[in-house]
């Protein structure tokens, strides 16, 4: 099967966005605790990531199992409790490391890709 250039570029983009999701969640929680829907809304508004809800909740639970996040239930004025997530110290450390890798990587990729933009 031959995949068209456009199609494979789209697939690559999907993988790229997915790869960033873990870091994006850690980054969103950097400022303090948030519950699932708030995390989703922040991801939608502040990042270019297209996030499916069915992906984010299991990922949150996975990050918690890995010890990067902790959670607590807080009563809401809506009449039901909400599960808030916050970074653990390990999570903060991981976020810092990942952010440093990201910055280094994107700046070197930026340099590498600079001539491509000029040719247009």
């Amino acid at each position, binding site marked *: 099967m031959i995949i068209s250039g456009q199609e494979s570029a789209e697939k690559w983009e999907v993988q790229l966005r997915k790869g960033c999701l873990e870091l994006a969640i850690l980054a969103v929680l950097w400022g303090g605790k948030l*519950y*699932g829907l708030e995390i989703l809304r922040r991801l939608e508004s502040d990042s270019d990531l297209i996030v499916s809800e069915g992906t984010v909740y299991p990922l949150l639970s996975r990050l918690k199992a890995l010890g990067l996040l902790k959670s607590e*239930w807080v009563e809401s004025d*809506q009449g039901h*409790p909400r599960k808030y997530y916050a970074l653990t110290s390990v999570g903060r450390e991981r976020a810092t490391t990942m952010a440093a890798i990201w910055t280094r990587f994107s700046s070197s990729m930026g340099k590498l890709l600079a001539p491509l933009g000029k040719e247009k």
Partner: protein
Amino acid sequence: MTSEVQQQVDEYLDRLRENLRGLQADDIREIVEELRSHILDKAAAGGQATAAGVAAALSALGSPERLASEYVTDSLLAQAEVSRTPWRIFDALFRWASLSVAGFVVLLGSMVGYFLGAVFTLCAVLKPFHPHTAGLWLIPDPANDLQISLRLGFEGPPMGGREVLGWWIVPIGLVAGCLMVIVTTSFCSWCVRQYRRSHLLPRG
């Protein structure tokens, strides 16, 4: 919220709960309550939860079966990674095998490993009860080759066969059997660990 809307939410969460079987009871409760809270918040954006709001929230979450499988698969593989009990590992491998060819191959490999381990151990254990027939045999086959065969001693001695290890099959069989099980278990845990590393990111 009307009882009809409530029923819609309960039905979704019941199906989810059903498919989360295999996880710890506390984890299931927590997942279900978190998603209930999500559905209610999302459906009630800016006021009372409406039937249309709930329907939209549920469809955004996707089918409860798929959602549950995201939770269960990772949890089972996480258990298998640290577990040293073959049935836990089998449970995780069966699920992994249903998801990918790699999982299926590892499952087959683990079956062969555990089977060989069991046969070696059984052969060693049965030797005292069938001293003349249980053991490791070299048997000539029609092509004039020799076949190596582990016999448990339930049949008579093989035609023209020669027993190789004698009573040594007892210590050797026990050690080889245990080693097979340990090596297979470690190999499976290693594969699961590699798989989880490469799939830490959610599946599409």
